[in-house]
């Protein structure tokens, strides 16, 4: 039992592979046919199999099957594919901007593009999204303009956050995408409050939120599940288990290798879903939304995926995991899998795909060119530092007014 720490007096877990190791994952035993649909009003316990298993729709042969198949139209699937591909191309462009000093920092969704996109597509437009930095793709689904997203990441004059926060800390109220905060985990418990407010106002609004495998060790995770269960909040609580929290493997985030089942003793139906399977994600989320909307309370979902890229532009994962570990992830790549499915059902071709890529490339490039017109970090212009003093309070109190004057004196000298 003491395992790898038998020689030392403390048991310290380790990552399965470190640099120099061969990357190896055991094949997944789970198939699309494994799991039936769950009753809407199932008890937490009745969801046990779904929490210990894995909901999949896209099989190894690229076909969609099983009880959880949402039977989406080819148009919807293509839309999903387009959003995901746009996000990947967008991310790559942003990384280049970061590397050339045009923005200060960046975080990609690489390998996890399906998560926020499929889940947001499964919701209604009045539903609230309370994301981390790894779900910016949801904004595409809600119609946000890329220029405005890039301007935020630069922190230029057109940034709707006014240069106040680091890149990727989006806010987009029009799309009910709630402001991203750096302290990990805080949104998870806050989302329960958002959901309860909707319920209090008797509106058919559901709130969805996400937390990382790492961040699920924060107290906020416990608060969220407890408050959601006790007050039956219409909230969808996702743990995105992408195996890593910066350099720390999820072995340090849980004593067991399953995050889904944690919801069950709180009394929350819990499901584990293949996070790189667009269709499974859509379906599980749709189900959770219906439950919430019917007044049946929260659903807890483990989204099983893999952080294919670096944690952020400041990170070099080859220092702590095999540089090619991502290629061995049994869940594959979410874009490839949906693409291959569409091809397999005769709704897509490699040529379509290349054309789409090109179209998106030029869209992103166009947006990029448009955005930098408002300034980039290397060259300016920068947003006015007046924004330091506004919106700290609804109205600046006297001491802020005094300091603002002083700041202007120095700035304008």
């Amino acid at each position, binding site marked *: 039992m003491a395992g790898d720490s038998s020689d030392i007096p403390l048991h310290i877990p380790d990552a399965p592979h470190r640099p120099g190791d061969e990357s190896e994952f055991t094949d997944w035993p789970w198939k699309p046919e494994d799991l039936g649909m769950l009753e809407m009003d199932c008890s937490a316990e009745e969801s046990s199999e779904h929490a210990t298993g894995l909901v999949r729709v896209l099989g190894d042969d690229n076909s969609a099957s099983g009880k959880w198949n949402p039977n989406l139209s080819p148009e919807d699937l293509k839309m999903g594919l387009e959003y995901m591909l746009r996000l990947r191309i967008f991310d790559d462009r942003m990384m280049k901007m970061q590397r050339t000093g045009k923005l200060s920092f960046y975080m990609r969704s690489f390998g996890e593009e399906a998560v926020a996109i499929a889940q947001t597509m499964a919701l209604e437009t009045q539903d*609230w999204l*309370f994301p981390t930095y790894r779900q910016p793709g949801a904004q595409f689904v809600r119609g946000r303009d890329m220029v405005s997203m890039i301007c935020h990441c630069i922190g230029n004059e057109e*940034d*709707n*956050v*006014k240069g*106040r*926060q680091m890149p990727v*800390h989006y*806010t*987009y*109220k029009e799309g009910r995408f*709630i*402001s991203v*905060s750096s*302290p990990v985990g*805080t949104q998870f*418990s*806050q*989302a*329960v*409050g*958002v*959901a*309860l*407010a*909707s319920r*209090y*106002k008797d509106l058919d609004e559901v*709130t969805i939120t996400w937390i990382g495998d790492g961040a699920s060790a924060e*107290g*906020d995770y*416990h*608060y*969220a599940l*407890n*408050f959601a269960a*006790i007050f039956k909040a219409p909230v969808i609580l996702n743990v995105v288990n992408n195996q890593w929290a910066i350099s720390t493997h999820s072995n340090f985030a849980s004593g067991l290798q399953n995050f889904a089942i944690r919801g069950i003793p709180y009394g929350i139906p819990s499901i584990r879903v293949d996070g790189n399977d667009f269709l499974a994600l859509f379906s599980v989320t749709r189900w959770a939304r219906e439950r919430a909307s019917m007044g049946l309370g929260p659903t807890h979902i483990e989204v099983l995926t893999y952080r294919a890229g670096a944690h952020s532009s400041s990170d070099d994962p080859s220092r702590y995991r095999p540089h090619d570990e991502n290629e061995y992830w049994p869940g594959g790549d979410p874009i490839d899998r949906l693409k291959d499915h569409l091809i397999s059902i005769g709704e897509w071709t490699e040529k379509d795909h290349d054309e789409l890529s090109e179209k998106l490339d030029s869209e992103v490039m166009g947006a990029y060119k448009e955005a930098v017109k408002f300034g980039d970090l290397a060259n300016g212009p920068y947003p006015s530092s007046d924004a330091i003093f*506004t*919106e*700290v*309070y*609804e109205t600046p*109190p*006297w*001491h*802020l007014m005094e300091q603002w004057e002083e700041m202007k004196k120095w700035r304008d000298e």
Partner: protein
Amino acid sequence: MPNMNMVESVNSALDTMLSNDEDVIIFGEDVGYFGGVFRTSDGLQEKFGKHRVFDSPLSEGGIAATAFGMGINGLRPVVEIQFADYIFPAYDQIVNEMAKVRHRSGGEFWCPVTIRTPAGGGIRGGHHHSQSPEAQFTHTPGLKVVYCSTPYNAKGLLISAIEDNDPVIFFEPKRCYRGPFYGDPHNVPTWGGHPEAEVPESHYSIPLGQARLALEGNDCTVIAWGAMVHVCEQAIKDSGISCDLIDLQTLVPWDKEAIEESISKTGRCVIVHEAPKTSGFGAEMVASIQERCFWSLESPIERVTGWDTPFPHTTEWDYMPGPDRIAAAIAKTQEN
């Protein structure tokens, strides 16, 4: 006008706001069915329904986070932290989240939450039922910090806090819930007959940021908040020195005009609080006053505060500033 003690006036403020505004919602540990361990929400669940006034799990972090979410989604939550000593599990949610959400979101989201909490010593509460942690919130931009002292200002300030669109930390001096406290533990008056206990049943408010001139005088400015206001009143009487007694009421933003005006008149100042001296809010007051009124000052500003130690149980009267220490400080300001 009815005579209310501070428990009743806080209750009346909550009652008024629950009646006036459907978005007001109240929760916290034991505040629902039972009406709060200090009885400040007594009867409100019965009157307004348990969707308006309810108990919460024993989790200050969860309470703050839930209030945050409700706040950014259109409600106006008023939550209770049972003792101010227990606010720290919620500290991250308050200082990193509530305080910053309006700013960080470019004004897209804001958080009109009021956090009420009984604070201060004098009830033999020892380390963890006596602290007065106001200073630990005054350093965080985005928060407003209020400390009431009487039944009248408790209601008026609490209504302003609830109506405010920014997060407000609202401290209630638990030693004064049922009567003013003049620093003598053997003298336990009630609020009966006290002019500050005449509290309208109906809605009224005291603007945040405004101090109250509790006594008027010429030779020294005494600044205090919470229970210490009454102790200072006693000390001023005992000292025989003519003093302005400024009940700060709001710590952030504090009342610049009231302070500057008084100091320019008196040229001398004593600041009194229960919390430990080092980095207490008294430090900010001294620093600001010497910056703004240096040339008016005739003598060093004195601080009379709790010691830089945890709050004791049996010997709390040797810890809390009493009229003797305050009167001596007032006298000392007159020396030069």
